[in-house]
């Protein structure tokens, strides 16, 4: 299978290990990632509220590029998934909007007719590739490892746009964890918000939210966490020590990107998954699963 | 037991459409106003569930006139309306509906930006106004509430008014229970406006909210005010289950595209084709109720009790149905019914009651100092189901009550309550009695008993035998159980059971009056049906039945209706 690969801004700057490990597991699972060569930032929630016209035009362009290659779009970031899905839904259903956007896109020789689907890596793994095929590639299952799922808001809500999982009682990330041979940990914060989108403007609030759910995961017995979103990852991993300081608590909860956890289960090593870049050291976990 | 004392110029009891409109008007006329209500503002009233209001104005058919509107109202009401009050209502409704736009509401518009009315049931011209998704009631309540917020009017929430204080024949205040804290409250005022809504809770299944226990009507009666036409009530149909959704109305008059929803019997036949092929589902509430009840009588209904009929929405365009029949579609889908494929089972329910406090054109009751507005007032339209009935009399008479109550407050001094302290003491004892009684009679048991009695003997089709039986049962409840009600918990904090004990007392009084009035009226007219007197009797019964407490007992008499503007002969 082949997809137009849309990594988003974070995996190209701050979270390059996500892009790297995605490419690694995609190759092993025979998912071809076609470079989009010039797809721009999805605009995130900032552009959407600030300049909706530009928001639809830029995302329309991204979708048009994928359509010109005859491919669906693969995302590895929750917010990219949401914003592109939202733009896609509006462009598919609102003829007037689509005509307006296509008029603008014609200036750069592009056109979108609504033929693309936007899929997150998690969904592609569970649906397109399927557990059967993936299980064949699991060489070193993460037996006994207690992993807390952190979904991240924009892969679950709003339901009308995202549709894959039940936002109140999702199972997809738990299924993924089990597919890797590990044990999912249940806690109420798994569907809550890490606060990333307020980080540039109000870091104190973001860190407070992150800390709350880190604590819940730890209290529920988690040894590590996994998240399908690099923005949530940045908060949970990058700001973990700040969160701990704020709460007066010593956290030590290593966080994995989706393909990093899968890669480990498939037998890949620390370097192949760029695990050195994770802020919270993962060595203890690697030791627990017998990799070092 | 501490008593909390407060005083104000104008005291309004009841925070629905009428109560809020009265409060706003009294405030704007310079009076110090206090609004006491049995719940939270904007969240405890029948108004939110209403759909629309009807008024003649610079919209619709240019040939429409207020005279035509008056004629419609009086005719559909079976000529039982108070014609003077109806004329005032029809006159003033135009301003009242336009005012709501100043308060933030927006009536539906056509493509040119003009107010776009539709034809309501019983109206001869399109003059019914509604708002986005037909939730006119919700928008009316919200706009009135935002005006209350603008004026920062002081509220007394979670208060149940239980009795009127009367000094020398004039009402000087109200006492009641703050049931959130369990304290007794005594409110002194120059004018009191009762806007407590209807008393439909006497029936086992009713569509308006459960606070409708006729508190204001019962208080007024006990204080000696006149009540009117207590034999009248509206009967409708609502979804058969679940119980929570029994409060939803079946909006038969809304056209979705070219069609309304259809009402079917158990053979799948369209019921209204048999009874009113001209209007079909757009007939007035009483015609529809009679038709459906007849189907039940003749055995063409389903269910254990043989009273389930069906609402059919399958033929309607789905998206448009969601917009026009909002409540019904929204809630039925939650209940798991696919309206494009399945029928909605419906069964009989009671709607608002029509009887209440008798008022004159200044909204004065027969007791000086006591005003009334909204569904708490008695049958000014007659016994009917014309579209826009409820919101119409709430807005017009709410405003007039507020205005007149404020005027009175300007003209008199604050009344003294020294002479009525014995009334305060007696009421306090009555209110606290359930808290002190030890028995195994709980309020819910008495309520269910009463409701079953009315469900069985005060049905849409009445007869002497049933009415007498029902009356006897109500009297027995009154004598044997009412004064021995006790509570399962003696907490003073938000004790709803305590509130129910006091509500049941009101309902029993009201039920007795309803039976007596129904026994007296020996005819059938619009929604009041008697199997033993199936014909309309204009000669003897173009009368209002007025009930009053005199010298400790109930006096009941029939007073001729003044046919000032419209007489029945003119119709034919």
């Amino acid at each position, binding site marked *: 299978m082949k997809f137009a690969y849309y990594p988003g801004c974070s995996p190209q*700057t701050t979270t390059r290990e996500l892009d790297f490990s995605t490419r690694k597991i995609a190759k092993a699972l025979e998912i071809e990632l076609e470079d989009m060569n010039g797809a721009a930032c999805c605009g995130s929630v900032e552009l959407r509220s600030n300049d909706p016209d530009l928001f639809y035009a830029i995302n329309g362009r991204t979708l048009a590029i994928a359509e010109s290659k005859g491919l669906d779009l693969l995302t590895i970031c929750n917010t990219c998934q949401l914003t592109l899905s939202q733009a896609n839904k509006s462009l598919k259903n609102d003829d007037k909007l689509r005509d307006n956007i296509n008029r603008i896109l014609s200036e750069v020789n592009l056109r979108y007719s609504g033929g693309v689907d936007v899929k997150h890596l998690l969904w592609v793994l569970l649906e397109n590739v399927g557990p059967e095929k993936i299980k064949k590639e699991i060489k070193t299952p993460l037996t006994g490892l207690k992993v807390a799922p952190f979904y991240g808001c924009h892969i679950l809500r709003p339901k009308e746009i995202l549709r894959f999982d039940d936002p109140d009682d999702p199972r997809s990330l738990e299924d993924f964890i089990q597919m890797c041979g590990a044990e999912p940990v249940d806690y109420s914060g798994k569907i809550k918000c890490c606060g990333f989108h307020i980080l540039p403007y109000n870091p104190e609030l973001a860190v407070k939210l992150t800390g709350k759910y880190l604590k819940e995961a730890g209290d529920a017995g988690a040894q590590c966490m996994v998240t399908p979103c690099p923005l949530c990852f940045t908060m949970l991993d990058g700001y973990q020590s700040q969160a701990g300081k704020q709460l007066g608590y010593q956290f030590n909860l290593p966080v994995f990107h989706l393909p990093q956890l899968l890669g480990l289960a498939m037998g890949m090593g620390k370097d192949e998954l760029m695990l050195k870049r994770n802020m919270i050291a993962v060595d203890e976990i690697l030791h627990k699963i017998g990799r070092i | 037991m501490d008593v909390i004392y407060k005083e104000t110029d104008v005291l309004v009891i009841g925070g629905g459409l009428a109560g809020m409109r009265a409060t706003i008007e009294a405030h704007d006329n310079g009076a110090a106003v206090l609004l006491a209500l049995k719940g939270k503002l904007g969240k405890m009233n029948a108004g*939110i569930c209403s759909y629309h209001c009807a008024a003649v104005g610079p919209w619709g058919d240019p040939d429409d006139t207020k005279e035509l509107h008056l004629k419609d109202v009086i005719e559909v009401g079976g000529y039982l309306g108070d014609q003077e009050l109806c004329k005032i209502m029809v006159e003033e409704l135009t301003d009242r509906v336009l005012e709501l736009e100043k308060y933030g509401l927006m009536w539906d518009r056509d493509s040119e*930006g003009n107010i776009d009315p539709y034809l309501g049931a019983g109206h001869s011209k399109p003059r019914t106004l509604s708002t986005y998704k037909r939730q006119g009631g919700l928008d009316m309540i919200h706009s009135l509430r935002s005006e209350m917020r603008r004026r920062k009017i002081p509220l007394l929430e979670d208060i149940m008014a239980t009795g009127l204080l009367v000094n020398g024949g004039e009402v000087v205040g109200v006492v009641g229970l703050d049931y959130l804290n369990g304290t007794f409250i005594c409110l002194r005022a120059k004018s009191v406006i009762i806007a407590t809504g209807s008393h439909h809770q006497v029936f086992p299944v009713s569509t308006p909210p459960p606070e409708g226990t006729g508190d204001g009507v019962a208080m007024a009666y006990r204080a000696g005010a006149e009540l009117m036409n207590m034999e009248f009530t509206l009967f409708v149909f609502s979804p058969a289950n679940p119980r929570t959704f029994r409060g939803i109305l079946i909006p038969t008059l809304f056209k979705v595209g070219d069609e309304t929803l259809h009402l079917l019997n158990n053979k799948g036949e369209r019921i209204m084709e048999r009874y009113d092929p001209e209007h079909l589902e757009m007939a007035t509430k009483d015609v529809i109720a009679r038709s459906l009840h007849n189907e039940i009588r003749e055995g063409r209904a389903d269910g254990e009790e043989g009273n389930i009929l069906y609402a059919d929405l399958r033929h309607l365009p789905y998206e448009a149905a969601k917009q026009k029949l909002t409540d019904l579609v929204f809630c039925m889908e939650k209940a798991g019914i696919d309206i494009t494929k399945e029928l909605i089972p419906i069964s009989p329910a009671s709607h608002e009651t029509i009887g209440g406090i008798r008022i004159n054109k200044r909204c004065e009751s027969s007791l000086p100092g006591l005003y009334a507005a909204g569904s708490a007032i008695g049958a000014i339209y007659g016994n009917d189901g014309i579209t826009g009935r409820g919101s119409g009399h709430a807005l017009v008479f709410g405003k007039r009550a507020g205005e007149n109550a404020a005027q009175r407050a300007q003209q008199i001094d604050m009344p003294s309550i020294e002479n009525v302290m014995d009334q305060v003491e007696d009421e306090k004892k009555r209110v606290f009695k359930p808290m002190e009684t030890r028995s195994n009679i709980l309020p819910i048991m008495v309520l269910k008993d009463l409701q079953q009695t009315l469900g069985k003997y005060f049905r849409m089709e009445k007869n002497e035998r049933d009415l007498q039986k029902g009356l006897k049962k109500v009297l027995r409840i009154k004598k044997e159980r009412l004064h021995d009600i006790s509570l399962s918990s003696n907490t003073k904090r938000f004790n709803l059971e305590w509130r129910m004990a006091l509500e049941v007392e009101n309902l029993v009084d009201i039920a007795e009056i309803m039976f007596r009035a129904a026994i007296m009226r020996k005819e059938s007219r619009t929604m009041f049906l008697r199997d033993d007197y199936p014909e309309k009797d204009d000669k003897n019964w173009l009368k209002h039945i007025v009930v009053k407490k005199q010298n400790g007992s109930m006096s009941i008499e029939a007073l001729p209706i003044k046919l000032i503007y419209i007489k029945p002969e003119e119709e034919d």
Partner: protein
Amino acid sequence: MEKLSAKIFRYDPTTDDSHRYETFEVPCEKGMRVLDVLMYIQENFDTSLAFRYSCRRARCGSCAVVVNGKPEPACLGEAKKNMVIEPLPNLPIIRDLVVRTDEYEERIQDINPYLVRTKQPELKPEKLLSSDFTQVMPLNECIECFSCVSACPVNGIKWKGFLGPTTLVQLSRRLLDPRDDRDRIQDALRTGFENCVSCYMCVNTCPVEIGILDGAIENIKKNYIEKRQQDDYSKYNNAWKNIVIKNGIVNPFILMRRILKINTLLKNIVTGIKFFLKGRISLSSKRIPNIEEIRKIEKVIGEKR
């Protein structure tokens, strides 16, 4: 007959030291709502159970409770086989499932929740076009049930100054009403709207399906940025937009550098250094190929305006 099990939160502050849960078995019926369960329990097991309800069709907004962790009106919530029913969080409890909502009502009062027009129109019908009201009409369906604010995580950690989604919807109703001419940005300033984390919990919870985030909050943000270009919040949003146009990719470091004040940068210096050591901070402005296309698009849009 099938039964379902309901665990209900009970608490009387006047007599109990702390709350407890009581479990009841209730016969199951087709289409049963949570409110049906509560009414059944109140009528058959414990007449002292306290809860609010009125309209029974999600119009009055008085019956909101938390069912299995999710706030919703009891009249709409589907009765499930195993339920835990609790009062709305973060509010003082009156008794059992009844809470004091004064705080939320005061927040709404604070933003002047009524139509403000400097020139009062006469009592004549105005020509109004429905097309001018398409954004505000769906917001009018808000029943102030407070489910959204109960689910909001920022409200949940009692972040000072954030008034919550209900208040923002009520503000937006007037901001988007073409007849209102008050400077609603003045009211927005008091709401802390910029602290909305865009998590969509409110949207997910709203029983009458109001687009709280996209329809209300983002409109406030948009209006704010248009009218207050020089404020920090607007600068942050515009910086994001400008980097997209300039580079196509948003490098967080570049963004932070543009918008953060010196003292905030210094406060986060330790984290910054840690990130840098792990190679997470790229100092260069990475740019996409074909960036001219983005700039052309922006130019075309600008010309259309």
